[in-house]
């Protein structure tokens, strides 16, 4: 036993002599310390993204009828300057007295370089009959700014969240004959959703649908007079953390038309909702 210890000591001593010791830690002066910069957030982005396939997602009700979405395909073009305009995830301080917030900021996408193309098929099944409803085709979907927030609710448990949206869609079409056959379709061209000014005119800002401090949205489980329920809601505007007024948004569709083989195009013109405010939302799911 003593010999073994001696051998171990000898080897340890030799190893210590061979290895180069790490330099000792050095104290930093205030001036040196002030130059240290922490990187406390994560940027992320897609590059060359595309997806396709025949996967079918089916939601089935308790009585057996179902809704399915299948053959989802999507692709996104990239900013010509990679890394210049990513999604950004940060943990930021909440409003006074409130919890910290996970903040995900979407790319500003000023030149609309990041464009989405997407399509999917859908249908329903009820009473043993499946009805294929055709395809939904989305062309040139552009998100500009906006983002998501997540935090803890001010009351009760759950997930509080905020969302801001500025979205433009080049064309949204519903095609009963499939995604590759646009000869019969309901076509919405130029769909725009975003923040508006006091006159209901787009002001090139996202529409803040909810904010974790001034008008929080929440997902949780609540109990009403008939039992516990899955709940999604948006609270009233809270003047303690903002203006007390719900942000206004607008929806514009430049053109709505119907096309069918052998028929003249039915052009319904444009549609515009100048100013929308969500003052309060309360959804409970029941069966």
């Amino acid at each position, binding site marked *: 036993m003593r010999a073994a210890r001696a051998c171990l000591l000898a080897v340890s001593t030799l190893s210590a002599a061979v290895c180069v010791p790490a330099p000792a830690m050095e104290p930093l002066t205030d001036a040196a310390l002030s130059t240290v910069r922490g990187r406390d957030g994560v940027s992320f982005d897609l590059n060359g993204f595309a997806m396709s*396939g025949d*996967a079918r*997602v089916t939601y089935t009700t*308790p009585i057996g009828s179902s809704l399915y979405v299948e053959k989802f395909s999507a692709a996104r073009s990239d900013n010509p300057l*990679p890394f*210049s305009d990513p999604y950004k995830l940060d943990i930021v301080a909440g409003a006074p007295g409130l919890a910290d917030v996970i903040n995900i900021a979407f790319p500003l996408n000023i030149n609309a370089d990041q464009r989405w193309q997407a399509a999917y098929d859908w249908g329903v099944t009820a009473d043993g009959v499946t009805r294929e409803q055709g395809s939904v085709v989305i062309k040139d979907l552009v998100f500009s700014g906006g983002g998501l927030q997540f935090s803890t609710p001010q009351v009760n448990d759950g997930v509080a969240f905020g969302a801001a949206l500025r979205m433009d869609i080049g064309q949204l079409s519903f095609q009963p004959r499939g995604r590759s056959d646009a000869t019969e379709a309901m076509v919405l061209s130029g769909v725009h959703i975003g923040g508006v000014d006091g006159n209901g005119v787009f002001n090139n800002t996202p529409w803040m649908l909810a904010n974790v401090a001034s008008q929080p949205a929440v997902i949780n489980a*609540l109990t009403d007079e008939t*039992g516990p329920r*899955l709940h999604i809601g948006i609270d009233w505007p809270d003047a303690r953390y903002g203006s007390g007024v719900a942000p206004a948004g607008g929806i514009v569709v430049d053109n709505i038309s119907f096309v069918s083989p052998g028929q003249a195009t039915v052009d319904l013109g444009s549609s515009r909702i100048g100013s929308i405010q969500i003052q309060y939302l309360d959804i409970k799911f029941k069966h």
Partner: protein
Amino acid sequence: MARALILSLMLAAGVAQGGPLQALDDKELSQVSGQDGISFAAHISLNDPTLVGAVSDSRLSLGFNGDGQNRYIVFKNVRGMVDMFAVSLGVQTRADGGGDYIAIGLPGYVRYTNFGFESLSVQTDPNAPVTGNLGSLNINGTVSLQGQVRLWSH
């Protein structure tokens, strides 16, 4: 024991013959390249009811407290299979000189087989029989992805 000592000394001598370690500055270190990425494929099977000893009633519950009561969102029998080939993970250098980034290559083949859950309900007791079922969700089929998800600090 003597043999062990001799072996240890020989190994130590081998290290010494390799020369002492030398510190590299950032510039030299950035020139070092290697096969430093990994790829992985996966076959995931969750709660397969066809296997011997399979659990017939598994629960995934999310609890919420408020007004003095506990409530639970309950997913019953989260199950199914996912086959995925292949996700790559590597570290690359940005061409604009902004540092390095993590590149996650998306899988070219993903197959879902009866992946989903049997019921979704909200209950005061997560282990009680399901009441107020809101329905089930199921995914079947393949998805092909391409491109990367890139992550870096800011």
